């Protein structure tokens, strides 16, 4: 019977984890490829509205982002709850937009400047007043190509 005793004795064999690094690396590469670095830290709320007739913004490097929304919880004591404009990492005023566009244009090659698009990332709760003002500033600076960034979905969920 010694033959049979041998099987019963001994602990559970350890699970071989040699392929674990491979699996994790696979996940790692997926995330590295599928995502882009977050360039700006949001200081305003940014829940985008839904639309279903959307087009893709292809050339990422030819896009300037303007965020509009009410300040996030951490900044509400300082800046209040009214919708504000965010350029780069900071709160900005309407008068800063023209300088922002000019500085963005200066960083691009001259022949690419006409293709620059302004992406307006506006919170769905914001009023059109501030958006209209921003659009007026963009017209003054002759930045006429704009894109209202939206999420893909039915308008009924707005």
């Amino acid at each position, binding site marked *: 019977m010694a033959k049979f005793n041998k099987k019963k004795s001994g602990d559970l064999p350890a699970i071989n*984890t040699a392929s674990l690094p491979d699996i994790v690396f696979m*996940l790692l590469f997926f995330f590295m490829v599928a995502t882009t670095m977050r360039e700006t830290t949001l200081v305003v709320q940014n829940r985008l*509205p839904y*639309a*279903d007739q959307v087009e893709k913004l292809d050339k990422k490097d030819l896009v300037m982002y303007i965020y509009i929304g009410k300040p996030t919880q951490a900044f509400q004591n300082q800046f209040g709850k009214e919708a504000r404009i965010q350029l780069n990492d900071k709160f900005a005023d309407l008068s800063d937009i023209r300088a922002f566009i000019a500085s963005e244009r200066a960083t691009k090659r001259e022949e690419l400047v006409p293709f620059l698009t302004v*992406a307006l990332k506006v919170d*769905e*709760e914001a*009023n059109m007043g501030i958006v209209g003002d921003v659009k007026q500033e963009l017209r003054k600076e002759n930045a006429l190509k704009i894109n209202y960034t939206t999420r893909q979905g039915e308008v009924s969920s707005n």
Partner: protein
Amino acid sequence: MAKRSAPEVNAGSMADIAFLLLIFFLVTTTITTDTGLNRKLPPIDDSEVEPPIIREKNLFTILINGRNQLMVEEELMDLKDLRKAAVDFLDNGGGVDSNGNKCDYCHGKKDPSSSDHPDKAIISLKNERETKYSTYISVQNELVAAYNQLRDTRATELYGVTLKQMEANYSDVNWIGNKETLKEKIERVKIEYPQKLSEVQ
């Protein structure tokens, strides 16, 4: 001494290192939304040129008030009815375009009290400062949808494919076919139903 093999590197902590990297990328990245509605703003016009006279029947006025209600052609309207109303207006074809040609591709009612020609039909959008942005986007979306619907119908009639498919083919590098003629076809459909959307400041 020469027979001794090199000691094996302990790879047990490899997983930990990889996990660390993985978590770093998970935290610092977002899958960004890069879709949206493309629009073109009108340039600021300082010249004293008299604007062309547009007849009332060629204008489709939409007003969004501060309480997010829609007034379309002096009447209250629900958002879900807007697309059809816009299509009916644009596709009416009751008269002639600026060159005196009749709209022979329109499917509308040819109502003389509505728009003359898709080339002349203008949608005018006005909003108040208190209007919520999401309502404004919904309206914009419905109007773009109306144009897309008309263009798709026209493209299917002419070439048997929708405009969306044609544009997808145009940007597809693996598509086999003549891209020059395809571009002309796309342009033709776009010219027959030009997007004339004016926003009142």
